[in-house]
């Protein structure tokens, strides 16, 4: 049976739980309210001071007091403008926010000044400690601060191999803006990362990368032994470079259909006389995905002599191939239109249907379409 004592115990437990929830909600609300009132004026003063500093009003000296010393004394280095006190007086969380918020908007000398200020204020030191922490979320915060405030830090290279994918992705994103040959090699390796986020970040970084990336990508394509060859081809197609030409032609004959398909897309992006015979050959590939990419590539290149070969694909058993062929023909101008006209009366009903639909859509002839309201 249930006794009155048990009832009181249950009541007490529920009361305690409710009180804890109330205290948590309203304690947090009070803290939030206080920061919302107190932070903006302090941040505004500090932002003005920082803008002045970055504009050359007072360059922070490398001998500036660091971290706690600066905070307790409120003194800046010799030659600092008085406004610097407003930055030094800020709590750490606001200093970090102030500097990292501004970091994305400044370049050149101003960025160097900002980085020096971050060092002087102890922000970089703390970020480096965080980047070595055993806790992934601390490493993430460290990586975030380092990536926004430092152009070069060996720790960021180390974080490219971090065990946590969020930290790795942060480092990869940073690497996209700081690519040299070694970093490009690392990014190519990361295309095969076990985490989809890191693979995506590496692809994005390689697409954003400067001139250091294409030679590395071209070399990996040429060797053709990379485990992430399809992703590498995707990157190459996203940012075509003439150095990929030979490798693309060679990979168009790869035994793996997925590789042949992306190679066709890359050839379509690269263009050139040498690409045409390869693409024409791929129109007869046994895999529909390859035929589809080859037809689309020839359409993109506007290679009208291939019109009749592309038109034959209107009879292809795969809908995707027929559709790609139709759209390619529409892109080939008059020869393509002629082929569409001919195939619109074809014995094969699927070919005729696709040809008619593409004809209608290309404005060659519109049937049953509504006129726009005037």
């Amino acid at each position, binding site marked *: *049976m*249930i*006794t*009155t004592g*048990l*009832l009181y115990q*249950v*009541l007490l437990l*529920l009361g305690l*739980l*409710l009180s804890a*929830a*109330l205290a*948590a*909600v*309203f304690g*947090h*609300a009070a803290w*939030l*309210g206080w920061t919302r009132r107190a932070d903006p004026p302090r941040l505004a003063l500090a932002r003005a001071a920082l803008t002045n500093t970055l504009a050359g009003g007072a360059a922070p000296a490398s001998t500036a007091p660091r971290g706690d010393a600066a905070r307790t004394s409120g003194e800046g280095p010799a030659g600092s403008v008085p406004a610097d006190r407003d930055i030094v007086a800020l709590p750490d969380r606001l200093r970090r926010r102030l500097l990292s918020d501004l970091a994305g908007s400044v370049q050149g000398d101003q960025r160097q000044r900002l980085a020096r200020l971050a060092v002087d204020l102890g922000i970089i030191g703390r970020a480096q400690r965080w980047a070595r922490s055993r806790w992934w*979320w601390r490493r*993430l*915060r460290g*990586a*975030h601060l380092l*990536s*926004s405030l430092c152009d070069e830090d060996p720790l960021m290279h180390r974080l490219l191999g971090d065990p946590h*994918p*969020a930290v790795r*992705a*942060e480092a*990869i*994103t940073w690497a996209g803006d700081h690519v040299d040959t070694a970093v490009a090699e690392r990014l190519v390796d990361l295309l095969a990362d076990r*985490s*989809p*986020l890191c693979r*995506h*970040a590496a*692809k*994005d970084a390689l*697409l954003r990368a400067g001139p250091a990336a294409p030679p590395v990508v071209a070399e990996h394509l040429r060797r053709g032994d990379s485990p992430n060859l399809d992703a590498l081809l995707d990157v190459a197609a*996203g940012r075509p470079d003439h150095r990929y030409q030979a490798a693309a032609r060679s990979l168009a004959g790869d035994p793996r259909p997925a590789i042949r398909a992306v190679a066709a897309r890359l050839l379509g992006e690269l263009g050139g006389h040498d690409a045409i015979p390869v693409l024409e050959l791929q129109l007869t590939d046994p895999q529909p995905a390859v035929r589809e990419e080859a037809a689309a590539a020839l359409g993109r290149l506007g290679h009208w002599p291939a019109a009749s070969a592309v038109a034959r694909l209107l009879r292809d058993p795969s*809908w*995707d191939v027929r*559709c790609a062929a*139709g*759209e390619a023909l529409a892109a080939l101008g008059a020869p393509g239109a002629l082929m569409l006209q001919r195939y619109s009366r074809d014995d094969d009903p699927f070919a005729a249907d*696709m040809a008619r*639909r*593409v004809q*209608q*859509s*290309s404005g060659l002839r*519109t049937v*049953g*379409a*509504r006129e*726009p*309201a005037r």
Partner: protein
Amino acid sequence: MNLAAPVGAVLAGLDWAILLYFLAANGFYLLLLISAGWEMRSYVLTSRADSRWRLVQSRTAPTVSLLAPAHNEAATISDSVQAMLGLYYPNLEVVIINDGSTDTTLDVLIGRFRLVPAPLVFRQVLATEPVVGLHRSRSHPNLLVVDKRNGGKADSLNAGMNVASGQLACAVDADTLIEPDAIQRMVWPFLTTANLIAAGGTIRVANQCQIRGGRVIVTHVPRRGLSGFQVVEYLRAFLFGRLGWNRMGGNLIISGAFGLFDRAAVLAAGGYAANTVGEDMELVVRLRRKSYEAGRPGLVAFVPDPVAWTEVPETARVLGRQRDRWQRGLADVLWRNRKLLFNPWYGSLGLVAYPYFFFVELFGPVVEAIGLLGLVASLALGAVDVPFAAVYFLVAYGLGICMGAFTLVLEEFSFHRYETVPDRLVLFGWAVAENLGYRQLTVVWRLHGLIKFLRGRTDWGAMQRRGFTEDPSAPAPASRSEPG
């Protein structure tokens, strides 16, 4: 012969059984709450990373097609489409499906967005009512309008799935207010998780919030009872219910008002089912079931960020109809997928998620109703004493109050969208009060839904909305069919 003693004994046994049921259900809620807290912490910490926003804006991010069915919405369609086109996402295609409107919906779209006929070339993977025409916008190249014969919401979404070109497809209700960066937030789990088939986000209550230009500018906790209770319900359902499931076998529900799907998976699974009132849940369960059957268990993720705002019913009659329909939808989906129950072949889906929905969500109202009536009868017959009844009440409803309160703690430490102290106080008040009357009322509505399901009723019922206005005191417009 005196029957009071055996009846009393049966009632006492029943009361004990139901008390244990409540203990087990609330224990599971506690597990969900802990799981949600852990997940929220991880989410908030990860969202501090800069790469998160850069990567979803990358041109390598997946392409997304936003699918919005429209039926006789000439008055609002222009603003709705404009708001959709203003969403922040680089690879976004907006597909409006004109579901056989008999008003000027299509003409409004043609005039406002300079539509021209587009190729009727698309692969009809899902069977739908015939598509009459496709139109593409000259002013907004990423806007596509599908003109089709009337077939209902599920049919329209299927037509949209056929025509869309995005890797991901996002089904939205035309009257849902979507946060400008909602797509970015929803795409994130697709970047981080392999085998993800769908993602859902938090839907919040927009009643009495200040709205301008299709966006919620200032949030307020409604002072009216029914909508206030629903704010707590929505927070609990999304913040700790669905978020908690992220780590415990995955979700079975994604709100029809805003959900993001792997389009290829939806096409392969056969699209939305038109013959159910719970087509959103039905699709998610079917997608998950088929992914297990294909040997590649698919995941459904939940994003705790508030991504969309909706108007909830403000009258008991309309709310009752909605809950009745939800319960019928749940029953229908669970019935269609009954082979999942305790089936180890389906992993956590069959062993954890499905049984929870079956025993707690579907039969919860039955147990609760029997429990309440049984307790009253037991007290009257003297089969149980007052301390037992009090403990019973505390376990059933006191713990419910605590769960509601801790949901508010989760909200406070994550998004704290209700910013004023009076709002928080009112919200706390609703969290306590909803267990004393409102919850029992929902039990009645859900029971009604179950009974209707058993009788084979599949109608939707009419939904009356006030409509989003900048002035919350504006008069209520006419009723219309609820989009789900």
